[in-house]
């Protein structure tokens, strides 16, 4: 058969991770924005905009992990061993914020603030360590004899801390523009006011990461600045500039879906940037998707299911979002 299984699986996993970043990105972002909104009613609305969908959003992370184990077991074990502590911290953060969706509404008024703090703290911790993992992943992972060959805290570098901060900004902007789409009145106005500085901050961190990455990683610099790659990659920064400009424009006009969609474009472009910098390595700097691929019997068997079922998943996920479309507010909620 002429099917390139590792290639297709790499695409599926990249897609899952992107879906995760985009979808859990905005609901993690809502947690990051909680400190900027004080009123309980507004906080209820913010949480309610994602309550029916957050669980499905998080499932993309499970698919990323399970798919990696199925298709690239070597990458799964090396990445998870190398980032042992940040992964555990991220999971604990996701636990604290995940339960807050239900617990917050069950707690008595004097205890509700604990779950607000769990939601904020959990979202912040999960975002920080996801960002740190991203930076450390770009830095590369030493591997010997099919096992991680570094130390427990190797992931903690100035670069990884900076990518963690960058992800904070990206998720916050996603959450902010999502709320512009889903809310109205004072809460929406507040989000519009926050969105503008967040957009500039995101642009700043994109520029900073784009400068820092090739400076610190010779292989990536070589890939970016050699011909004809430079020609092919040049549209990415141009499109980023255009998207940012459009985003600022659409925030000025009376916005609904525009800012959110443009933020998605921006995140997608950044994601593409990482993809083209690291491809075809699944464990930078040296293990490619072909080195890490599991047995073809495993990849083939799972691919049948993935190709049949992922379109269905996308279908009913879209239906779920459609069912809960429209603005959310304190007085009407989902009761029409």
């Amino acid at each position, binding site marked *: 058969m002429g099917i390139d299984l590792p290639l297709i699986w790499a695409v599926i996993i990249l897609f899952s991770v992107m879906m995760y970043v985009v979808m859990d990105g905005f609901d993690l972002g809502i947690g990051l924005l909680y400190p900027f909104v004080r009123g*309980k009613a507004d906080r209820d609305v913010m949480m309610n905009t994602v309550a*029916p969908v957050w*669980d*499905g959003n*998080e*499932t993309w992370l*499970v*698919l990323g*992990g*399970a*798919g990696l*184990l*199925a*298709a690239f*077991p*070597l990458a*799964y*074990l090396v990445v*998870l*061993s190398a980032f*042992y*502590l940040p*992964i*555990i*911290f991220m*999971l*604990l*953060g*996701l*636990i*604290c914020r995940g*339960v807050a969706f*239900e*617990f917050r*509404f*069950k707690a008595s008024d004097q*205890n509700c603030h604990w779950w607000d*703090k*769990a939601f904020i703290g*959990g979202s*912040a*911790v999960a975002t920080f360590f996801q960002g740190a993992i991203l930076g450390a992943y770009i830095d590369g992972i030493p591997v010997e004899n*099919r*096992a991680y060959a570094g130390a427990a805290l190797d992931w903690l570098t100035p670069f990884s801390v900076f990518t963690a901060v960058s992800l904070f900004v990206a998720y916050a902007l996603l959450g902010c523009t999502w709320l512009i789409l889903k809310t109205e009145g004072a809460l929406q106005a507040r989000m519009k006011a926050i969105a503008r500085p967040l957009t500039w901050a995101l642009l700043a961190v994109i520029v900073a990461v784009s400068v820092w990455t090739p400076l610190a990683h010779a292989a990536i610099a070589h890939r970016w600045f050699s011909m004809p790659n430079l020609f092919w990659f040049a549209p990415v920064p141009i499109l980023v500039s255009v998207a940012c400009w459009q985003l600022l424009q659409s925030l000025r006009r009376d916005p609904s879906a525009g800012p959110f969609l443009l933020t998605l474009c921006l995140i997608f472009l950044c994601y593409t940037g990482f993809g083209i910098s690291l491809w075809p390595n699944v464990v930078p700097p040296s293990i490619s998707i072909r080195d890490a691929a599991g*047995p073809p019997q*495993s990849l083939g*068997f*799972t691919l049948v*299911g993935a190709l049949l*079922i*992922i379109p269905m*998943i996308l279908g009913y996920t879209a*239906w*779920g979002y459609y069912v*809960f479309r429209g603005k959310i507010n304190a*007085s009407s*909620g*989902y*009761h*029409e």
Partner: protein
Amino acid sequence: MPSVNALLLARVQFGFTISFHIIFPAITIGLASYLAVLEGCWLHTRNEVFRTLYLFWSKIFAINFGMGVVSGLVMAYEFGTNWSRFSDFAGGITGPLLTYEVLTAFFLEGGFLGVMLFGWQRVGLGLHFFATLMVAVGTLVSATWILASNSWMQTPQGYDIISGRVVPTDWLAVILNPSFPFRLAHMGVAAFLATALMVGAAGAWHLLRGRDDPGIRMMTSMAMWMLLVVAPIQAVVGDLHGLNTLQHQPVKIAAIEAHWENQASGGVPLTLVGWPDQDRETTRLGVELPHLGSLILTHSWDGQFRGLKDFPREDRPNVAIVFWSFRVMVGLCLLMIALGLWAAWLRWRGSLYRTRSLLRVALWMGPTGLVAMLAGWITTEVGRQPWVVYGVMRTAQAVSAHGAAEVGLSLALFILVYVTVFGAGVAYMLRLMAHGPGLPGGPMDATQVKGGPGQPRQPLRPLSVVAEPLHSAPTGGPVQG
């Protein structure tokens, strides 16, 4: 190589996280099916009691489901963080099975849960019922895949080992491995039993406090019917599972029975209680019933099965743990059967809802379904040691090469967060159960709460599944990240 301590800590961590986790999916499996039955009955009969019960139990379901999701997320990553050598060796089989679980079950549950919990006003009745069914189906599909994976680790087949790694050769044989059908049936029934006991205990609690309305009666009645039918089925399924284990993992059965060696003549006795002494290879203070061991395991008076001394010492599990966890499970199952029969007898006599002694027993047996299930898992998982993939890979070879400090730190954090967060969640569930369902049209009827400006009963939290704030304060706050 990892130190002995790091291995022990990794095992404790896995045991701790999986034991906490399994409680929530078990209740999810049982409650999802119960909710589907309630909604189906309501649509069919239009008896509002069913709908009231649906709305009541769906609140408890929502809390429980959230805890299942986040504790399950940990499991999906723990294979890589703590058991990387296992993942390298067996990822070719466990990875695809886990991926199928995500694709066919997790997304189904996550995709339809929102509509099921929050969609009453947004979709038609038929579509809402469909959403409930999809969630219920998702929970069962999920159990099927993960038990296929676990069963393959217990009774592996359908694979080759090529350059030190497992390569699947026959997926049908991998999935339909010898212990899989028995484990799936045993665990599925256990989830239903645990849920029935929980629902029955909630009903009994209200009846004992003098709250006797159609909703309370209905849920108590349904739970006791379930117990009457399902508890004996569980005993039969368990017996079949045991015979299957005797065939494929004889040393596990020998440990369960603390059966050290065969005598020259006569059947194997059943040791009721005693203290198995692993070093001296004997059971101290054992109380034995002659021939019963043979009768249970070979279904014949004088049948023989292999004793522990037939196996090398390094291939034996911890006998005392397996021996006692098995007895806890079986003892509780016998109590469940007795409770079901007693309730049926009182129902026939017409005094089911008035007999305080039965209600008190039903209340105290509320958590025993979960206890029995955990005891069963301890039996089967400790009983297959020292192997992680039975007969193929030892647990000691499977662990990641982390230091004891990292594993110890993460274990301490898991214990801290799980106990506070899930402790609070369980407290919320219990408080909702104590609150009880509202009567149709009564002050607690969630269907009547429409909200909207100017309405007297406008809920402050339009999307929360619970319609009433809960009174007293929880004991523990969460720990920040």
